[in-house]
């Protein structure tokens, strides 16, 4: 079966033609686009989101992590707009509208302009070297009553694109039901990578109180976060219980060059060292996860390419079917890698792709007189329905694998059927 190889070859040739500009070229097939996206995805910096209800100290935390390098105009509490801190040679500030239109803003006079720019996000360019590897997104707080339509900033595309999150909560009212609800609606893949940060720990007046709140958080939110910790910008808190602010040795994956470099101010505050260590571990683990996932997808595609038989039947029809199938799989792959959708949406999208593929298949088959009476069981609606309706935490990947294996088998049978009938007809003729 040469189809996959041909497609990949075409893409490779195109990429070779325009070295390093894979994302500028206007790819015209789904696999082209998918591969370009995969490439971008693998090379773009890891993105950390600062999330939480309003007034929980997200922006202060951003400032603490980034340090003094943020340009003054960028030090705006993200009360109404998303702020993305990323690397640039010079400090700069720009506004990116929802459609992607970018507008550079004057650093000196930006402040008054910032109001009223809602549909999009601000990008703050910070000349910090490690921001080449990690970007920080400060998200406006949830839970604030709004006059207009409901506050769904956490559903913005850019928020969905982050890799892990720090959920900020007030130490004195930590992890309320409303926070839990919002968090559980966000992509489940974040849970094992993200941190729950209880801020304003100084409002709890003794080390014992802090320990008890933390114990409750560990108990109540253990399935939602990688780690829970407590920080306070007032430094240091006057007790010795937490003097051994030691980093927990959690991750075996410790990169030679840490993705994140600590800001000295962050290390000074209460809980700062713990936060830095946990964050470093989480980033390392996420990066490793990303690499593994990419490798897995590559392996699966290779395996499938080698496994599918090459039929010698009516070549045109077979090619059409396989082309459609390849497109389907590539979109799925792209969706999984790009993963800007919630997993459930990914399922729904995949199901939609399969449905349209199936329709195309039906059309193609009906054009061949010999296949007029063929009972088509491939991609049967019941399976699609199950795909659409089945939801369960953590089983997505296995479920998807099952479905793909099953579909692969079915596809092979369809192709064999076509071939058999063709042979039969030839003999009859």
């Amino acid at each position, binding site marked *: 079966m040469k189809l996959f190889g041909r497609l990949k070859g075409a893409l490779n040739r195109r990429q070779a033609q325009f070295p390093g500009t894979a994302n500028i070229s206007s790819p015209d097939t789904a696999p082209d686009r998918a591969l370009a996206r995969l490439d971008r995805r693998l090379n773009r910096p890891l993105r950390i989101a600062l999330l939480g209800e309003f007034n929980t100290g997200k922006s202060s935390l951003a400032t603490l992590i980034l340090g003094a390098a943020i340009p003054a105009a960028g030090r705006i509490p993200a009360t109404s707009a998303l702020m993305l801190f990323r690397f640039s040679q010079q400090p700069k500030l720009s506004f990116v509208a929802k459609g992607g239109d970018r507008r550079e803003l004057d650093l000196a006079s930006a402040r008054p302009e910032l109001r009223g720019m809602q549909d999009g996000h601000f990008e703050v360019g910070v000349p910090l070297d490690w921001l080449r590897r990690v970007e920080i997104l400060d998200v406006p707080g949830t*839970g604030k*009553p709004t006059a207009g339509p*409901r506050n*769904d900033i956490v559903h913005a595309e850019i928020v969905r694109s982050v890799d892990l999150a720090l959920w900020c909560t*007030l130490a004195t*009212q930590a992890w*309320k039901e409303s926070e839990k609800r919002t968090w559980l609606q966000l992509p489940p893949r974040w849970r094992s990578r993200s941190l729950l940060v209880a801020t304003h720990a100084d409002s*709890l007046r003794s080390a014992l*109180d802090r320990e008890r709140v933390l114990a409750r958080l560990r108990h109540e939110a253990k399935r939602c976060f990688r780690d829970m910790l407590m920080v306070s910008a007032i430094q240091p808190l006057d007790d010795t219980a937490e003097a051994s602010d030691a980093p927990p040795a959690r991750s075996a994956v410790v990169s030679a060059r840490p993705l994140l470099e600590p800001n000295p101010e962050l290390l000074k505050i209460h809980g700062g060292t713990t936060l830095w260590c946990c964050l470093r571990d989480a980033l390392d683990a996420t990066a490793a996860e990303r690499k593994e996932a990419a490798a897995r997808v590559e392996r699966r595609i290779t395996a499938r390419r080698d496994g599918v038989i090459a039929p010698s039947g009516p070549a045109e029809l077979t090619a059409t079917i396989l082309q459609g199938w390849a497109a389907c799989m590539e979109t799925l792959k792209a969706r999984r890698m790009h993963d800007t959708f919630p997993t459930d*949406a990914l399922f729904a999208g995949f199901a939609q792709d399969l449905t349209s593929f199936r329709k195309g298949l039906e059309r193609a088959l009906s054009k061949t007189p010999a296949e007029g009476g063929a009972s088509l069981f491939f991609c049967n609606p019941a399976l699609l329905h199950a795909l659409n309706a089945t939801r369960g935490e953590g089983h997505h990947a296995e479920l998807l694998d099952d479905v793909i294996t099953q579909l692969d088998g079915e596809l092979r049978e369809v192709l064999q059927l076509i071939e058999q009938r063709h042979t039969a007809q030839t003999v009859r003729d």
Partner: protein
Amino acid sequence: MTGSDRGWEAARRIEAAVRMPQVGIQLNTMTNEVIRLGTDLLALLDNPLSARVSEALATVKAQHSRIAVIGQIKAGKSSFVNALIGRPGFLPTDVNPWTAVLTNLHFAVPGQPRQGAQFRFFDETEWHQLGQRADTVGALTEKLLPGHAQVQDVKDLEALHRRAEVRLGRYYHQLFGKTRWYSDPTPEIIERYVCLGQDIEHSASELVPGRYADITKAADIFLDAGNFAVPATLIDTPGTNDPLLVRDDVTMNGIRVADVYVVVLTARQPLTAADLSLLRVLHGLQKSRIIVFINRADELSDIAHQGDAVVSGVKAVLQREFPAGDIPVVIGSARWANAALQAQAEDLERLWDAEVSAYAHGRAVLASGEGLPPARTFDTDALAEAILAWSGVPAMMAQISSALLQGVSAFWLSELAATLLAVVEVVASSFRKEVTAQEEMLKQIERAQPLSADLTRRTAIVEQLRSVEREIGQNCGMAETRMRMEVAKAVSNLSSTLEEEVRSFAAEQAAAVRDAWLERRATRNWHCDGATLRNSLEAHVLRTFREVDKTLFLALRDLTPRLPGFLQSTASHIGTALTATPVVQANISPSLAPLGRPVVFDLDDSWWTLWWNRGQSAEENARKIEELVMAEFGPVATDLWRLVEANLQKHAFAAVRRFFTRASDVICAAIDREEKAAVMTQKLLSSFEDTAHISGDTRDRNLAEIRSRLAVAEAVVAGLRGYLREHSSPGSTQRAAP
């Protein structure tokens, strides 16, 4: 005066008047006044009228006010309650969510003990219903996305059962439906019943906090009057948070009938979406007596300057959300108040230096425009008083006191005063006539003619009064029938209007979905907002109430067509005493609770994204939306008009009855007086005929006695009139009908 002294003076000025004031002093004064005037009147009356009046007085004496404290978890409700009752540490508090059970604190409530605590356990059925209650979100998502299993709540419920078993042993079921009584409750005992407690592993011992909390339905703690000038019940509630689950049944049932609602917010996150949904639910119950306390002001990093911004921010949102009601907002810190009450010199000094002085200083600057350095040249008591004053708790007590004047107790008080006034006016006028008649008689004592004429006239008046009484009796029956018909008519109009509203809203939404699809707008951004429909349903209900109110007023006027005119001729001012109090203004407002019920349209956008992603056609989606609107809001509309029907019938009939009682009391008093006077005249007449002479002394004594009784009656009239002028129709200023 030095600058520092002035800083201290600024604190002192406020504190001087507020050192732990009593809650409800005005209401207490009002009650006492009505009871005093009523007792005075009682001395002038005979049975059966006196029995009725003394019964009414007893009812008023038995009234108590209910104050509910609600808010999100960890807002500091229990701490606030402790500060309010002046007993730091009485209700247990903790750094983690702690209050798990609705706790009623009864202060000198008539007919209840003055000390002790009673804990009621759930019965078997209630225990099993707990699970269904927790599953509101599950039920909603099931409606929106059938088959989308919500396993979380089931797990929670199992955990609850398991914990109860670990804490209470395998036979914990035997405790169901029982109550436990302690005559001397300590914080430790209370903690055992009302607090969440720690994790399972700590709960081996009998005395562990929260041992019984899971199965305790309510706690009642009985105390003496303390800081309350009127009998009162203070209700501390478990914290709410989830915007969809705030309508927690146990809490909502417990607070449904409160007179005053204290909503506790936190200064760091004043008025979150969850707080606002709680306020909306209260508003849906038509609770206009809401007071907002912004607690934990001590946690603001710059209290002096942020404090005012927080208050005005909260006020602005409240004004936007509830333009009709003027909700008072007080900022403060229950922690400061509790520290002040404990009065540990060292703590107070630290607290003043670290936190309160900056706040006092900042407020002084804002008030006078000049800077004042913080001062600390005073003794512990003065320090405690200053900190207490700045804690906002005394200000809250004042707010609660004035809110109590809008409550049910105050309403019944005014109703009673109006009835008493009607009765006493008849009595006074009758005395007045008798005095005139006797004086006349003294002049014309020689001639028997006028006396017998007087007797005839009085007999005729009594006859007429009796006929009016009969007429009122008949009219009362008629008025009830009429009200029944009017209510039925209004409700049937309302029900069809409401259903039509829901139907047209459903059609509108379906059309919107189709349009969005045709215009290729991203449907996942389309959102059905139930607020518009809820608002229009509310408007229709309120309009119906106003209409029925009008009819009721007419019906009551027709109830006694002859009485006012008739009494006008026999007794002046009687017409004014018989004005009716309309239903809506009677503080018995329509319940709009069904509007607060969560529907699938309240679910977050992510659920809806899933819904849109099911890949259905525009037509299917539109049809489904229409069905959903009908299925969700249809029952809301039905429940609304059923509630309106029940409410109107109950309250319209109650108003008719109340009015009838008042009218017949007045007639009864008039007949009583006329008959007495007739007997007197008869006596005079016969003695005149028999002996041709009665002693001048007896006559004078009679006259003097009647005069003195007249004086008492007139004093009561003046007292009641003054009272009603001052406190008339509570709440009507807020809810004046347009």
